C-alpha cells in the first residue's frame, strides 16, 4: 500500500529557523530518506514553497475565481509531502515517527493513496 505522508507545520516557525537550522533539519531528513530509498520504499518527495506563493482557484462560481493565497487559512500549513510504499499502517506510522524525530514541531497526516501515476507521460492502462 502506498501512503502519502503530508507534512503540516506552522510556516512562520519554519521561517524563523536560521539557514543553519533549516539545513540541519534537511540533513537529518535526508538520512531518513536515504534509508527509505535504499529499502525501495520511497516515492516522490516534495517541499513546497511558502503559502504566500500559492494561488487558489475557487470553483463555487462560474467562471471560477482566482484568489491569492492558500486554500485554507490554518494554524499549520501543508509544507510538503512524501509518498512511501509500506506493508502496513504501522510501518507508515513508524516512518512518520522517524521523520518527526528529524524535524521538530508540526504534524504528519498519513493518507493511503488511491491512485498514483508517477509518470503520466506513460500511457494510462488501468488493466495493466
Amino acid at each position, binding site marked *: 500500500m502506498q501512503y502519502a505522508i503530508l507534512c503540516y507545520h506552522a510556516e*512562520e516557525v519554519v521561517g524563523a529557523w536560521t539557514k543553519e537550522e533549516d539545513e540541519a533539519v534537511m540533513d537529518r531528513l535526508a538520512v531518513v530518506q536515504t534509508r527509505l530509498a535504499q529499502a525501495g520504499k520511497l516515492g516522490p518527495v516534495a517541499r513546497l*514553497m511558502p*503559502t*504566500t506563493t500559492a*494561488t487558489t482557484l475557487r470553483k463555487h462560481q462560474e467562471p471560477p475565481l482566482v*484568489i*491569492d493565497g492558500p486554500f485554507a487559512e490554518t494554524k499549520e500549513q501543508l509544507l510538503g509531502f512524501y509518498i512511501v510504499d509500506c506493508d502496513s499502517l504501522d510501518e507508515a506510522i513508524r516512518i512518520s515517527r522517524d521523520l518527526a524525530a528529524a524535524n521538530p514541531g508540526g504534524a504528519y497526516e498519513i493518507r493511503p493513496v488511491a491512485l498514483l501515476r508517477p509518470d503520466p507521460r506513460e500511457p494510462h492502462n488501468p488493466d495493466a
Partner: protein
Amino acid sequence: MHDPAWIEAALTAARPQAVSALLRYFRDLDLAEEAFQDACLRALRTWPEKGPPRDPAAWLIFVGRNAAIDRTRRAARQQPLPDEEALSDLEDAEAAAAERLDTAHFRDDILRLLFVCCHPDLPVTQQVALALRIVCGVPTERIARAFLVTPAAMEQRITRAKGRVVRAGVPFEAPDAAERAARLQSVAAMLYLLFNEGYSAGPAEADRGALAAEAIRLARLLLRLFPAEPEVMGLTALMLLQASRTAARFDGDGTIVLLDDQDRGRWDRGMIAEGLVLVDKALRHRRPGPYQVQAAIAALHARAARPADTDWQQIEVLYRLLEQLQPSPVVTLNRAVAVSKTEGPATALSLVEPLADRLGGYFHFHGLRGALLLQLGRRDEARTAFGRAIALASTAAEAAHIRRHLDSLEQGTAV
C-alpha cells in the same frame, strides 16, 4: 519534541502577533513588551516539559495579558489572579477563546505594530532599530553590533525612538481602507530599508547581514496578512531576488563583485524560484508599482544564465516605467546603465551628465560616469571621475572596486 531551538523559533515566530495583540489590550508599548517577556519566561519554564501549545501565539497572548494584569493588581495590593502553575495549565478551550478574540484583529494589530515603528518623525535608522527590537525581538546588543554602535548608545536610541512614538500617539482605531493602504506603504518602505541595511553588509559583517533575513521574514509575514496586494508581492520578490546573489557578491578578499562578474552558480536557486513566482503572481493584478517594477528588473537578471543573455532592452523599458512611477535621478542613473548596453556609452553618458547637480555627492554617479568615459577612451576625464568616486566610497569594497579601474588606467589596460 521539546527541542530548545524549536521553542526559540516558536517564540520568535509568535512575537509579532503576540506583542501587537498585547499592545491593543494595554495601549502601552512598554507594558506590551513586558507582558510578552513574562509570557516567554513562563513558556521557557513550562514548554520543555509539557511540550509547546497547539497555538503558541494565542498561549502567549493569554498568559502575557494575565501576567500583566496580575502584576498591576499586585502593585495595587489587590487579590492576585491564579498563580503561574494554574496559568501554565492553560486549557485548549481557553486558548481557543483567546485565539477567536485575536485572529479577527491580528492583521491590523501587526500592521499597527509595524506602522508605529515607521513614524515619519523618526530618522530612518531609528525606524529600523525600533522594528528590529519591538517586532523581531532582536536583542539590543545585536542591533548595536549591526549598526556599529555601543549597546548603551543603541539602548538610548531605541528608548528615545519609543518616547517619540508614544508622544506622537499610537493610532488604535481600526484603519479604513485608505489609511490601511497608507500604513502598508510606510511599512513596506521601512522593511526595504531594513533589507538594504543587511544587503549592503560585507561578508565580514554577519550581524548586519542577518538584517536582510529579518526583512524577508517580515515581508513574508506582511504578505500572509495581505495576500492579494501586488506591491507586497513585489517587495518580497525584490528582496528574495536580490538576496539570492548574496554569496556571489563578494570575492575572497571581501571586494564587491559586480553583477556581470558574479559566479551565477552561487546564486541561491530557491530564493530565485520563489521571487520569480511572486513576480508572476503580482503581474497578474495589472497594478504596477515601484516594488513590482524593481522586482521585474531583478527577475530579468535572475533569468539570464550568462551576463550576455540579459534582456537589457526590457530592463531599459522597465526603468523608464519606474522613472514615471517614482521619478528620481538614481533611477535615471540605473536606466543609463541599461542604455549603455543597448545603445552604447555615448548615449548613456548624455543621460548621466545632466544628473551632476543632484548626484554630485553620490558614489555610483562618478563610478558609472568614469566607466562610460573609459569606454569612450576619454581617459583623463575617467581618471578624475574615478578619483571623485573613490573619495565618496562608503565601504572598503566600493573603494577597492574603483581602485581596480584606476590601477588598470595607470597600466594602460582597460578593465
